[in-house]
């Protein structure tokens, strides 16, 4: 199971990184979201995997490590706040700069066919 999860984490990271390296704001947002999933799973897995061990006292005899869960919870919330900000920033950039490229200007070869608004 561990290998499976590790593989998923690695793959999610890779996908996230690939999208992160795209030129437009929206794919970057998606990429960061994907990366956030990977990060959360990674951080979660640092407490090792436990089946049937929810950290609620009295429900089982061996508990999962509750601390990483709490950390991931915080991370999820913060990640949401950050993503939200980035999304709105992307809108603002599109409105201010006339395109949704991360550098605010379309690369040379694209200048000719500037996207219509």
């Amino acid at each position, binding site marked *: 199971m561990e290998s499976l*999860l590790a593989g998923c984490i690695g793959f999610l990271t*890779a996908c996230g990184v690939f999208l992160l*390296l795209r030129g437009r704001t*929206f794919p970057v947002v998606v990429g960061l979201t994907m990366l956030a999933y990977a990060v959360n799973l990674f951080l979660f897995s640092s407490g090792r995997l436990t089946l049937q061990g929810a950290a609620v006292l009295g429900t089982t005899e061996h508990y999962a490590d509750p601390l990483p869960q709490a950390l991931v919870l915080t991370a999820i*919330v913060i990640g949401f*706040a950050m993503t939200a900000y980035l999304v709105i920033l992307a809108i603002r950039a*599109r409105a201010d700069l006339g395109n949704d490229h991360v550098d605010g200007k379309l690369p040379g070869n694209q200048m000719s066919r500037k996207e219509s*608004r």
Partner: protein
Amino acid sequence: MTLLWILLLPLLGTLVPLLTANWRRSACAMATAIPPAFALMILLYHASAVFAGESLRYSLAWIPLLGLDISIRLDGLAFLFSLLILGIGLLIILYARYYLSEQDSMPRFYAYLMLFMTAMMGIVLSNNILQLWFFWELTSISSFLLISYWWHKSEARRGARMALTVTGAGGLCLLAALLLLGQVTGSYDLDVILASGAVIQQHSWYPLILVLFLLGCFTKSAQFPFHFWLPNAMAAPTPVSAYLHSATMVKAGIFLLARFYPAMAGTDLWFLLVSLTGLTTLLVGAYLALFKHDLKGLLAYSTISHLGLITLLFGMGTDLAAVAGVFHIINHATFKASLFMAAGIIDHESGSRDMRKLNGLWHFMPITATLAMVAAAAMAGVPLLNGFLSKEMFFVETLQQHLLGSLSWIIPVLATIAGIFSVAYSMRFIHDVFFNGKPKGLTKTPHEPPRYMRMPVEVLVVLCILVGVAPGYIVGDLLHAASLAVLGTDVPEYSLAIWHGFNVALLMSIVALAGGALIYVNRKHLFDFQNTLPGVDAITTFEAAMKLLAKRCQQIYGWLDNGSLQRYLVFLLMAIVVLAGLPLLQLDTLFGGRPELPVDAVNAAGAAMLLISAFATVVFHRQRVVALLMISVVGLMVSIAFTRFSAPDLALTQLSVEVVTIILLMLALFFLPHKTPKQSSPTRVIRDIGLASMVGVVIGSISYAIMTRPFNTISDYFLANSKTGGGGTNVVNVILVDFRGFDTFGEIAVLGIASLGIFKLLTRIPVFKPSSDGEGRPWALERHPVLLATVSQSLLPLALMVSVFIFFRGHNLPGGGFIAGLVTAVALILQYIAHGVEWVKSRMNVEYQRVVAVGLMVALVTGVASWVFGKPFLTSWFDYFDIPILGKIELASAIAFDAGVYITVVGSTLLILASLGKMTTSHRPVHTEGI
């Protein structure tokens, strides 16, 4: 203590002109003169002691840890230089009063001048080499200010910057040298360093130290090849030149040579570097001086050559040479200062410094002319004037050195040649200006200067004569004391007689005088020859060099930073691969021995779905809506994974955040293109895939390595104390609101801040409303479908009920304020979606940022409340109460804190989503604060 005042008075003097700025000019000048005058008096008061060979000290701790103390040492050398600095300084103050015109700001000038004087005094008086460097750099700065005094003139600006750059560079070298000296001798105290010459010269760093040290001296003293800044510094007002370039600044380097003579001198390297540099400078300066048509230019080059002379003397390394050097310092200061001032007078009264225009001024300003001629004669080394004496000593020394072994005879010959040229340019200064026919094309008719403007010149010229006639009486003690200070040991026998009998040195002088006359008479041919040579203008070269430097820097910078985010990210990701990857190579096995859990079909299916949907997200990333659907599947699978691995709280949170995120992105997509154009080149795509997979591999392997390693953690403590100490059975929630409540506190702060920032972003945004979606279909007409409207209304109370339930059970079972808050927020957002802004606003008109503030306040107050019980911030409290009918009920402060979380989450989420939603309506967010 009085010693300190010698330094402090000029410092205070910098304030005087500023304070007396709106007094009458003379009054201001007078007031400015007072502090240095007092300083001079104090100095003279110590004269007897100094002449007796004592060296007075005063020291005061400043930065002991750096070995930088305020430490003063007044010995013969310091006394001599202080005398020059203060004495000539006073004359300059008087002179400048008349030189400066009405529109020049005199207070500013005097302030700079006094600052410079302070710096010079600091150098010559300091007994701590770091302090010495402190004042050394201060001279560079203050001279920059003085040279650029007429900043509206471009040559003044350039000259100043050039001087600053050259001397600044030198200063840095000097700093290095001094610090190394400090490390070698273990002290920055001058006494120690001068005492440990042997140690220094034996040390392996000596050559490095010496070179750096000499770079410092030579740049300051305009020694070849660093001489070029001095002539360009002549753009300064003449008083400045008279002060800086005769007596003080340029002498600082010489002073350093003299000061460190015991510590540094005496080695072959020293001889070689110092004397040869001096010799070259002597010749070059003397030769070039002759061809300058600008009076000050001529004086500048003559200064260079005389500085070379002194350097050469110190380079020879014999005690007598050193004495001669000290003596020439005095003489050069006097006649050169007077010459500069004379030149200034001529410039001031005739409106020109060009010797081709200036002719026959004898008829217009006889007195000034006489004074100038005497001084010039002294410069030329005419007998009965001070210049003659030191030059004689110089010639004698050149005859006695054996630096170049069998070729040592070259030096006296070259010295004589230099003497010839110096006679020649001195003659030119006299003849070409005061005689040689009538003035040509002067703007105004020359006349004598005001009485007191000439006085400084008179004083100095008288000194030249007196020293020349009766050296022993006038400067004997001073010279002796100074030489003693330089040599450290006892001073050799030397006589200051005017007549040493007929000897080779005298012959050399005669040759020089005769030859000089000869050359000057036939200067025509020489000038022609000189004009054939390509002339290099230092200033344009310098400016060009600076421009080139800037250009190169811009090229390098532009090449490094192309302003592309992708490149920056690539650097970041490569860093991850390298820094996290390299250690893995040294890890012999990933598997850490902890047995793996079995894989069952269902998990495999889940993993498969996760991977497929993730991959699909990448594949479809250009069709943005589809990508969105795909990634929400990823999110769903992740939360299912959380459920699978016993993290119900995480699953709940992930799910609810998921929904909010989708709504957010859907809202956002309306303002963004729905499709991403194909952009990246195949090579770029391949590179990215490569990088991405490398990062993925590294992260994946690390996570596997960690998961399969046994470990022990602090979590057992939380499991043990959750119920007893935190009053809750859901350990995760207890950690969030109690054990690590402070994290949650920060977390909700982040959420709140984000919502504020988003509101800020949305205010004054230029918006636009696409009339159709990506495919170009016109939008459906129906705004709010009936069914949705009705159902959403009946759903709201249910949702509220559920969120209350989730909130309260959070402490003991999965749930809590955050999730409850999101449920409430989503239910309310559903109302916006189903009925529109108008409808909701008419029913619930709240400013959500207030809600955020209230939520944070609740959390904050809950935390601070524990202070009342003398407990730290966020210390929790809980207890169980028996209420008659209802039974046992738990009350916990954590619940209040969680309420803060709940309110903040609701407020922030609504502020974010609603503000964005309102963009297309008449209720757009605007910056309404400044009511």
